[in-house]
């Protein structure tokens, strides 16, 4: 126990800054090589280094879902992972969903169903819907609501978001 305490005390003193490491990621289909300190989160890498500000920061602690992106096809909170841990990964952000200027059906659905107001949680919501549909676990309305609960919308557009999910689930079934 004493060892542990001393270790923690030492940790409170100023520390040397760690060297940068090379990370290669495929972001929205483009391979990017970056030199990053280990303390850079995937979210901050996207926003601050690549200026892909479509991915939002709403809490920085996995409590809101605004930073949701697709990592190797799965939706995650980009604020709670380090960029250096994802060398070789494929990342899709909101900027990568439209193809050749044509909106992804979920993006279009958000416009048609007015599934946002201020728009700040929207990129995370949209990535989350894309992730939810590919997971294939939402069968009922209650499932949809529960599986979309990791994305807070303070404007309260939930019922319109649910409509988009339902439509997208139908569409994916039809394909």
């Amino acid at each position: 126990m004493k060892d542990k305490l001393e270790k923690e005390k030492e940790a409170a003193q100023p520390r040397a800054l760690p060297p940068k490491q090379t990370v290669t990621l495929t972001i929205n289909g483009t391979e990017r090589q970056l030199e990053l300190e280990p303390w850079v989160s995937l979210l901050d890498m996207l926003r601050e280094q690549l200026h892909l500000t479509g991915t939002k920061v709403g809490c920085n602690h996995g409590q809101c879902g605004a930073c949701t992106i697709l990592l190797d096809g799965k939706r995650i909170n980009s604020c709670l992972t380090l960029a250096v841990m994802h060398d070789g990964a494929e990342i899709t952000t909101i900027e990568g969903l439209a193809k050749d200027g044509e909106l992804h059906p979920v993006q279009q659905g958000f416009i048609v169903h007015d599934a946002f107001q201020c728009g700040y949680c929207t990129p995370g919501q949209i990535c989350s819907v894309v992730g939810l549909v590919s997971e294939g676990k939402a069968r009922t309305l209650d499932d949809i609501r529960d599986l979309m609960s990791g994305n807070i919308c303070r404007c309260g557009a939930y019922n319109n978001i649910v409509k988009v999910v339902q439509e997208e689930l139908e569409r994916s079934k039809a394909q």
Partner: protein
Amino acid sequence: MSTNQIGKPTNRVDGRAKVTGEAKYAAEFHVPDLAHGVVVNSAIAKGKIKKIDTSKAMAVEGVFKVITHENRKDYACYDKDFKDMDAPPGSPFRPLYNGNILFNMQPVALVVAETLELARYAATLVEVAYEEEAHETDFEANRGEAYVPEKYNSTTPPKPWGNPEEALAKADVKVEVEYAHPTEHHNPMEMHATVAVWEENGKLTVYDKIQGVENTLQYITSSFGLPKEKVHVLSPFVGGAFGSGLRPQYQSFLAVLAALELKRPVRVMLTRPQMFSFGHRPRTTQRFALGASKDGKLEALIQDVFAETSTFEDYSEDVVIWPGLLYKCDNMKFSHKLVALDEYTPLDMRAPGGTTGIFALESAVDELAYKLGMDPLVFRLKNYTDKDQNNDLPFSSKELRACYIQGAEKFGWEQRSKEPRSMRNGHQLVGWGVAHGAWEAQQAKASAKAVLTTDGKLTISSATADIGTGTYTVMTQIAAETLGLPLEDVTFKLGDTSLPFAPLEGGSKTVSTVGSAVKKVCEKIGEKLLRLAQQQANSPLKDAELKDVTFTDGRLHLKSDTAKAVSFKEIMQLGQREQLEEEVSSKPSEEQKKFARFAHSVAFVEVKVDEDLGAIQVSRIVTAIAGGRIINPKTAKSQIMGAAVWGIGVALEEESVMDNNYGRFMNHDLEKYHVPVNADVHDIDVIFVEEQDTIVNALGAKGLGEIGIVSIAPAIVNAVFHATGKRIRHLPIKLDKLL
């Protein structure tokens, strides 16, 4: 056809920008050499900074500066220089002004560094020693010190009428109860952020999260003594605000301070915990005394309010104006006192005063109706008022009865079982509740500019904001309708101090205020077009007056003969004009003062309460709104649905918890401060009843940002009572209150 844009459920014109991530919010303007500022906050609620040691932070490579009250540059010292457009009476908080600590989590230093990570790290190395003083943050313990402020920044409480005490004493049935509403924080999804860009020529460009760029401009220029022409404030997109952006928050000031000191661009974005370090909906306790005759006539109403404020500003809101607007009663009396605590000053939060006041009023009325054995809806009908008794004025319009009728029918209210605890579904108790509400339909002064070019494109601008409310969209619709243009030919610009003046976007007045200016400026352009057309020889419109012509599909034609037409393009080409330009101001009419102008709403709610575990589900909401003319039913419905979600949060979830030992809000993040998630929300039906109003403004629209929230929380509270037989008078109704 491009006319009749008003009333169409048009998709948001900024929708594409928002769903693609192209819409840029305050923190997202990247400029070369941007430095990152991170705020250090105080650990105590009251006292003085004894010592602030920044040496460890400064020793980190890449840290440019740690700004504190000891080393900051000079700035204005008078209160008046820090009064922003929304400042309540008092002495505004001045960030890093001196070593005095006025509230917990007060900013005490700004660390500016080359990267965000470095700034965050260095912020942990700033060491502050305090001389702590005893703080007062316990609202209940300080209620005895409540005072009447010298000046209310809200409406002064209405003068009493009749003889309420006597009428109360004589009343057959009485309710005398106290209600408490907790402190709440706005928590928009976007945290407050500012990018201040300093340029060599001394110019400053500020990207700010604000509900009106003019306020930041005024605040920054007066507090730093800068000339207005040197400062340009922009805020094209705002990630929600709900009132938190009415005043420039301390990150605006600190970003500018650092940019001026370092002569480079600086960004400051608050963290989520720091979103609990400034304005909030004040904790409010209300005593209600109601008396009625046996047959359900309201005979007396007394409302006494105690609300928190800071020690340095007297914030108040409209908590006591609602009874006189919503119930006919010959004897009413009100008081509104403040309790000053060692906290930051409260701040308008969606339907300020209405949310708190109407929750308590509508709960008390429900209690009275049950005591009388009356259907609560019947009680409201019986005591309906056609007059604003506060000011003895008629309403410009009030279709609240239509709201009752249409809402009740949609909800199935007549199937209501009368007794509390009389409906169940397995282990769930089912309850129905109703409440109504009002919100002022204000109009303020605003300006707008229009530029029509030969390609038939119209650009309208005004320095207003779109905080998610749909300003971009509805202004585009109003302009397109007025000049008969297709939507895609109209662009509306906002959030920029180089544009004509507009007031803060708050109080549900933007459509009314800016919309009236937009309509007016478009009419001016129309007039110009007609005059220009008439300058041509053989003009088919030669003798026409403005009232004789219509604008359709980019053409001007006689109403009586659509063949007598000429296109905007032709008019301008023949008149040899590159563009037509107009700028106008609009203001409320004198006529308005003769009327009380309010939007109204009613909410019917069904809840399901787990009998054993207390968990509450709001399974169904029907809300009917009388909000005048609806410019865009799609965005309007979204706004009302969103407000209903807020109502769920108010009733069941939201509460900023003060630890009085520390004088600190302890649940300062989104994990611990609960707002509703998707799974908390179920059916929400929104009805807009037909309401004509020619007084309220030129558009007949009342504004919808706030009317949607006020009746929801009390309807939920009343439904919980109906389900369980338990009257909860202290929000939020967390499940333990029902065990």
